């Protein structure tokens, strides 16, 4: 039986778009939203205490690429539609219209509109002609465009305080003022329609919950569903009054506006939570149950690199209540059990309620990877400088998905390009050619043997990087320009600062700060490779450039000795002045060059991010062997963390290295670190001292993993990658990987979690 697919929503959506093709973009979007919702909302599942699940259509509208790989804004998932049409699993009457729809969106999706607008400088480097719908990161590109408007942090506080009626009132007053002044008021009209779509969706779920309740056999389930129904009924027509209503409203709005971020949850829910506790209409256990339901929904709906819930930090109006909610959120994470999401993020500063950090350490010690720790004392001044915003706005910084920092409901900055630093170095060693495909991928800056000194190579590398940075910055700007002309993103604009008074959509000049970021990958491998080249080729003259290339081209086959020498060169992460110095020099050039792009573009900020996700692996697949000793296709180091196993001097040396690159010239860097479990169970004060010292020395962020049995098993399999794993016994000198295999196995057998 072929799977069945019903394209009726997609067809209605497309029809609405075409019918309003020449209407104001706000009206066109609102009409499309009306077809999309509540059609894509899916049923309440057994156990859900909150309504709100979504199955995005194959055609639709969403800022963030929902579903994955299908683009953003007005998107069309060609692959899935073609598959459905080819397998004839769609109703017969939809087939003909289905192909028509496919053809229509080919030139009309938001991504297609941006690609069509590429200028001549972008075309050769962003591979406009060869863009494939297949996972884009399988291509050996140095610079890659990213299509999405990620990092939506709407003003939940405003949403919850005003509720739908309050928002309607505000929009109507803006609408009236605009009309009185003879201005175009279509933006407000579109927003009012969108709000009605939101209210209708609340009522849709209220009816759905009531129907489920009517059919529920068990009294407890029936009562629960009735509660969901009443809750949704209430928020559809009045501002939320209880914690439950506030949670429900913020979740449903999150889903429908298409963001994958939950923002500063303690700021917008703290007061509701504490008020209900004090009124005695909510117990802590009730609240925990609701939160765990939210946790489940987030895990079901979001992908692993998204789903931030942010708690703690400066700039929270009612800090005492927010702290109580923050503790609830951490307790939720603790009792929910290990989960990929949400990425619970704790902002902290000196003088913050110490209970929060204690609770965070408790979680980490139990083996959770959350919360991620963000140091306000370093980050607020860094954001103030890097993003060029006043202190009170910097206090509202929020890390999105993988760690790119933007400003809560005031400053938008989607990462719209990825730069492969190691690939850029590889082509620099080949006069701008990619040795794998043989294609010219960058500038002709000379062959490796033409460089008379390391400085010549360094200058050539910088020239290549500058080109890709400029192209990606221009691409980011272009993406916003086209996006702004295409749609006002109504759900975003009505809750982003300055859009309403300016009567402009978020990407069309409405938002207070419109910035952007560039994701760089392979920074550490590139720096370590440069260190090795400088030492072996130029300083010690152990190889000629040709010999170095020969070894790299052979992927070290027959050049084991040369590889050994490259591996033995100093590596970042060991508090070594040469290796760390190279990384800092590269970091400064990269971050400053990217930051300077704001002078070439209209972006308020354009900043590097050095973050965590799988692209260190996927982008590395098409990079040949590198001079740091890494073999062809093998992963690059993750974020700002040393490459696997090259930090051999222990955690203090690692952290000393990590604080060397400046945090004030980029929009976020991620540090991963792992500790043995012993440190938490028996040596807690030493763990606290390690963390405290790191943050005092200027550490901005940390993601802590406690080593568990699985890590030790992997260490047995690939000892090279686990050189940082120490066996801690008094008076004994050894690293885990140096122990005889039988002893490793025995340690493993004793370690139980």
């Amino acid at each position, binding site marked *: 039986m072929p799977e069945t697919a019903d394209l009726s929503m997609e067809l209605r959506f497309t029809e609405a778009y075409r019918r309003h093709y020449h209407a104001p973009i706000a009206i066109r979007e609102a009409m499309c939203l009306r077809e999309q919702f509540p059609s894509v909302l899916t049923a309440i599942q057994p156990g859900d205490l909150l309504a709100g699940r979504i199955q995005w259509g194959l055609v639709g509208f969403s800022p963030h690429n929902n579903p994955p790989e299908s683009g953003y804004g007005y998107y069309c998932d060609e692959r899935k539609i073609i598959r459905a049409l080819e397998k004839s699993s769609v109703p017969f009457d939809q087939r003909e219209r289905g192909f028509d729809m496919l053809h229509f969106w080919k030139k009309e999706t938001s991504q297609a509109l941006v690609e069509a607008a590429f200028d001549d400088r972008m075309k050769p480097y962003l591979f406009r002609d060869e863009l494939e719908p297949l996972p884009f990161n399988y291509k050996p590109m140095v610079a890659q465009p990213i299509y999405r408007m990620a990092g939506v942090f709407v003003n939940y506080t405003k949403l919850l305080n005003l509720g739908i009626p309050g928002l309607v009132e505000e929009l109507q007053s803006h609408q009236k003022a605009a009309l009185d002044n003879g201005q175009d008021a279509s933006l407000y009209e579109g927003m009012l329609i969108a709000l009605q779509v939101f209210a209708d969706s609340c009522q849709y779920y209220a009816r759905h919950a009531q129907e489920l309740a009517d059919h529920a056999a068990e009294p407890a389930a029936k009562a629960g569903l009735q509660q969901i129904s009443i809750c949704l009924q209430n928020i559809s027509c009045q501002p939320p009054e209880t914690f439950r209503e506030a949670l429900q409203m913020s979740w449903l709005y999150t889903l429908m506006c298409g963001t994958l971020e939950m923002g500063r949850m303690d700021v917008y829910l703290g007061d509701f939570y504490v008020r209900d506790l004090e009124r005695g209409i909510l117990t802590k256990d009730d609240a925990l149950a609701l939160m765990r339901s939210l946790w489940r929904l987030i895990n079901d709906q979001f992908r692993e690199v998204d789903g931030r819930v942010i708690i703690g930090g400066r700039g929270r109006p009612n800090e005492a209540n927010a702290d109580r909610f923050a503790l609830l959120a951490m307790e939720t994470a603790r009792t929910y059990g290990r989960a990929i999401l949400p990425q619970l993020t704790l902002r902290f500063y000196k003088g913050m309620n110490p209970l929060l950090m204690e609770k965070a350490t408790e979680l980490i010690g139990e083996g959770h990877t959350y919360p991620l720790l963000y140091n306000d004392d370093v980050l607020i001044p860094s954001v103030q400088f890097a993003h060029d915003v006043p202190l009170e706005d910097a206090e509202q910084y929020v890390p999105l998905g993988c760690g790119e920092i933007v400003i809560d409901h005031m400053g938008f900055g989607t990462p719209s390009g990825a730069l492969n630093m190691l690939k850029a170095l590889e082509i620099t060693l080949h006069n701008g050619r990619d040795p794998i495909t043989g294609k010219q991928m960058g500038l002709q800056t000379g062959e490796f043997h033409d460089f008379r000194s390391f400085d010549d190579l360094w200058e050539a590398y910088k020239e290549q990087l500058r080109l890709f940075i400029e192209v990606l910055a221009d691409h980011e700007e272009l993406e916003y320009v086209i996006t702004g002309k295409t749609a006002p993103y109504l759900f975003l604009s009505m809750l982003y600062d300055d859009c309403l008074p300016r009567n402009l959509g978020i990407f069309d000049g409405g938002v207070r700060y419109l910035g952007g970021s560039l994701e760089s990958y392979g920074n550490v491998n590139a720096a370590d490779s440069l260190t090795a080249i400088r030492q072996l080729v130029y300083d010690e003259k152990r190889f000629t450039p040709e010999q170095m290339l020969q070894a790299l081209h052979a992927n070290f086959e027959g050049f084991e000795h040369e590889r050994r020498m490259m591996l033995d060169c100093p590596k970042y992460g060991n508090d070594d002045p040469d290796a760390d110095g190279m990384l800092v020099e590269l970091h400064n050039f990269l971050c400053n060059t990217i930051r300077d792009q704001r002078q070439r573009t209209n972006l308020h900020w354009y900043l590097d991010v050095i973050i965590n996700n799988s692209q260190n692996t996927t982008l590395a697949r098409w990079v040949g062997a590198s001079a740091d000793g890494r073999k062809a296709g093998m992963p690059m180091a993750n974020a700002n963390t040393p490459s696997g196993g090259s930090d051999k001097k222990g955690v203090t040396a690692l952290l000393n290295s990590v604080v060397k690159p400046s945090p004030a010239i980029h929009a976020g860097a991620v540090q991963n670190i792992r500790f043995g479990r012993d440190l938490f169970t028996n040596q807690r004060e030493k763990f606290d*001292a390690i963390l405290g010292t790191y943050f005092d020395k200027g550490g901005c962020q940390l993601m802590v993993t406690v080593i568990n049995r699985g890590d030790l098993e992997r260490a047995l399999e690939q000892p090279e990658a686990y050189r940082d794993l120490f066996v801690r016994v008094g008076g004994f*000198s050894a690293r885990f990987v140096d122990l005889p295999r039988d002893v490793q196995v025995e340690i493993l057998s004793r370690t139980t979690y």
Partner: protein
Amino acid sequence: MGIIFDVQRAALHDGPGLRTVVFLKGCPLCCVWCHNPESYSFHPQVSLNIERCRLCGACADACLWQAHIVSVGRHVINYELCDACGACIDACNYQALQIFGQQTTVDELMPEILADLDFYRASGGGVTFSGGEPMAQLYFTLALLKRCQDEGVHTCLDTSCYAPQDAFTRVLPYVDLFLIDYKATGSELHKQLTGVPNQTILSNLEYLYQENARIILRCPLVPGLNDQPDHLQAIAQLGIKYPNLQGIELMPYHNMGSGKRSRIGLPDHLSGLKTTSPDVIENWLTQIRQYGYDAIRVG
């Protein structure tokens, strides 16, 4: 100038707080259970990890002294011939060979020791000189201790106490905490297990205690070798005799060092001895408490 075989940063178990442990090479004792056998000799030594060797023979080619014997399925080092020049280590592509023992100076070591100063201060940690036997390189150890004190780094000295008393008189002002091993009771058994009698050790312990040195006594215990009741009783009695000790810690035998002996050409005579089980440790603790010393703990 001195010789060391390792520096470990962020050590957790050799004194208070986070510490950098400098392992000095060379020891007048030769404890049968030693888990750092590469510390016996005062000279650099080549170590062969046979699990990593691919029998390629590159080391044999590189060796001027023909100390490497590599043949089918077999690789041994003739230590009579080896002068630890390191040529084979450069030749090996598989990290099967390494050299233990690095000549170094106080000036070379200090930057690495001082790099973690912030971590020492936050955790109440510092530097620990271990070994080997640091007292066997008295002038080097003394110079390191003085420099550390000048720089405000807390110092621990991990020693067997097998050294002349006047050597301790000299280091005493610069050591914040002594970690002293108490290995066996009865001079004959001590000699059998460690290679030296124990009178000097006991008199140095007495001397340091009377001079108000801060001391933690550490007792390596190996099932079947030195865990006799009279030794456990003697441990308890030391605790009673020296009430101002900073503590007595048992160091139950673990076999993590077991592979190291064969790698440097020493017979592995304790092979097969397992890491001490928790039951045995609990039994030791009970006995020592029964002998009247309650403050006993596991290190």
